[in-house]
């Protein structure tokens, strides 16, 4: 096995791992609002876990990007600028561009998450809601460009997780906010 092949394998593994940890992040974020896991833990514990998941998906996502840039097995390599500006890569332009767009959104959501105290709660909330869009773009990125997403073992898990997240998101839209949110808003801590 050559170095390029090894890098390519690692890029695929870290991409799948980052997607899994992002799904956990979105799940814990959704449960804060929909009370689906109210029986399991308190809102405080879920919020702490939701914030903690950044420690999981950011390193895996960064490793995915670095490995793709270092991978020399493709004829037209991905450059650093391609990680920020979408739809510039010569091959798989749409698939890779969607991944770049989702990356931009997640960077914005993560940075504003850390600067939450300095941002108006309403502005922060609307920026944080972009994470839903980011997850949709990420799923399309995996669907259109994922090397392993065409495999039934991977796609079955991917579609199942996506279905659960969609159901929770729809439930959140239909049943509105938690009754606890009023208390959180009074404390100046809007739920995500």
């Amino acid at each position, binding site marked *: 096995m050559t170095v390029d092949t090894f890098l390519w394998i690692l890029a695929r593994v870290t991409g799948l791992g980052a997607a899994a940890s992002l799904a956990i992040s979105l799940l814990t974020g959704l449960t804060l609002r929909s009370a689906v896991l109210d029986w399991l833990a308190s809102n405080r514990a879920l919020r702490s876990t939701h914030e903690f998941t950044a420690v999981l998906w950011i390193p895996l996502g960064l490793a995915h990007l670095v490995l793709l840039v270092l991978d020399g097995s493709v004829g*037209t390599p991905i450059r650093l600028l391609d990680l920020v500006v979408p739809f510039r890569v010569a091959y798989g332009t749409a698939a890779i561009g969607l991944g770049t767009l989702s990356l931009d959104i997640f960077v914005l959501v993560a940075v504003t998450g850390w600067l939450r105290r300095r941002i108006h709660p309403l502005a922060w909330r609307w920026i944080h809601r972009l994470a839903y869009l980011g997850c949709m773009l990420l799923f399309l990125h995996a*669907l259109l460009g994922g090397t392993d997403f065409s495999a039934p*073992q991977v796609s079955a898990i991917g579609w199942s997780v996506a279905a659960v997240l969609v159901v929770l998101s729809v439930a959140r839209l239909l049943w509105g906010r938690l009754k606890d949110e009023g208390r959180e808003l009074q404390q100046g801590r809007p739920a995500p």
Partner: protein
Amino acid sequence: MRGAPAWLLKGSAVCLTILATVGSAVYVGGNVRNQSAPLRPALRPDAGLSAPASGPGQLNLAPGLRTTSSQRVTETHTS
């Protein structure tokens, strides 16, 4: 405190992520080449993913039928 503590949820998140990553590594390691992948960039010949070279006693099978641009030499009922 009501329900599971935060450290248990965080530990579960870490375990799930590790499980997903290790599971992915096992799967990808066993399926390095995925012919049905939707995005397959043109691979360089020296990328280590080309067909293995044939050695003594090995048969190297490769597509041998190629199209040509030369004039046809026969006429059939349909041509």
